[in-house]
């Protein structure tokens, strides 16, 4: 686990293969495709974010793409579009933008249908010829 402290300001591209917690300021792009990114309560991000999972307790301005989950906690703020199969937004969190939670199964089908667009976690185009969802899926909280 790596920590970027409150007084640190980074401009540019940030990438790595460890879980990362940011309490400082980052502008540009953050790429942690196989790891967890945590934006701490003091963290301020103006960046395109790609990670396995993103936990937001601070402020994010920019699009967030996660292959597993985006979790905006109480007092966390995201101003941008989110693409992830699971999204949790706590009461008291701020969010402005769109959420794309295309199902993992759908995503795999979409990628098979469109091999030239293998962008995990990114919004997929509508596939009119794909098979419909199975009947009898769980419905309800």
């Amino acid at each position, binding site marked *: 686990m790596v920590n970027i402290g409150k007084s640190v300001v980074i401009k540019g591209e940030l990438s790595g293969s460890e879980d990362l917690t940011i309490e400082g300021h980052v502008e540009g792009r953050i790429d942690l495709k196989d790891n967890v990114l945590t934006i701490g309560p003091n963290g301020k991000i103006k960046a395109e974010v790609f990670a396995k999972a993103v936990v937001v307790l601070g402020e994010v301005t920019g699009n967030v793409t996660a292959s597993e989950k985006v979790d905006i906690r109480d007092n966390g703020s995201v101003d941008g579009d989110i693409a992830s199969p*699971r999204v949790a937004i706590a009461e008291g969190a701020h969010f402005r933008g769109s959420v794309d939670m295309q199902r993992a199964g759908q995503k795999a089908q979409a990628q098979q249908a469109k091999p030239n667009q293998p962008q995990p976690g990114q919004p997929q185009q509508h596939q009119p010829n794909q098979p419909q969802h199975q009947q009898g899926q769980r419905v309800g909280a």
Partner: protein
Amino acid sequence: MADATRSLTDLFGILGPRRVADAGTAADTSVTNVAEASYPTKALHKFLASLQSNDNPLLLDLGPVVGSNVTFFGEQLGCRLRVEDLAKDIDRHVKDNTIEQLPEFFTKRFKEAAGTVDGILCWDLLDYLDRPAAQALATALSSLLRPDGCLLGFFSTANSPETVYTKYVVVDESTLRYRTYPASRPRQRSLLNGDIIKLFKDLRVTDSFLMKSKVREMLFRKPAPRT
């Protein structure tokens, strides 16, 4: 006729569940102006069913951000969800004393291209608008829907003196929790069934339910173009 309708509505109201204070006492409600109660819904299930055959549908939610709703619709539909809190827009226009500009505002409000949205959760926002603004919003929403797209609208059948909005929190496909919070203007005059149909003249009413909560739940569908 109107009196008869009102009597029936009142009867439903008596049978409906009581509103309970969030923190458990009526005194708390008066201080915080926050209350909530759970009510059954019949239209939500049909709304979901109409979208479940679409791959990655685009859903527009015109209410405030409710985290559990985002999770619910995402898990149920695998959708792209855009939350556009129109109550904030109404509040801003009231505060700036520009409420008469709302009709023009709604014609330019949405970024989505015409005919690209699969479903719209309009909730009860039209209740807070006067006729020109309601018509402008209804026309804009009708235009956004793709053919066969669905719109879910709630319409109060009783005038309420409370100046509150309602957050509709999805408990499950047949239950909603109504959570009120302060608004800058009260509901305007209740819309009659015919008025609602005229507002959405480009859409077809597929279902209409008068609920015990004095809310009429209506589901609209945009007809596919004739070939």
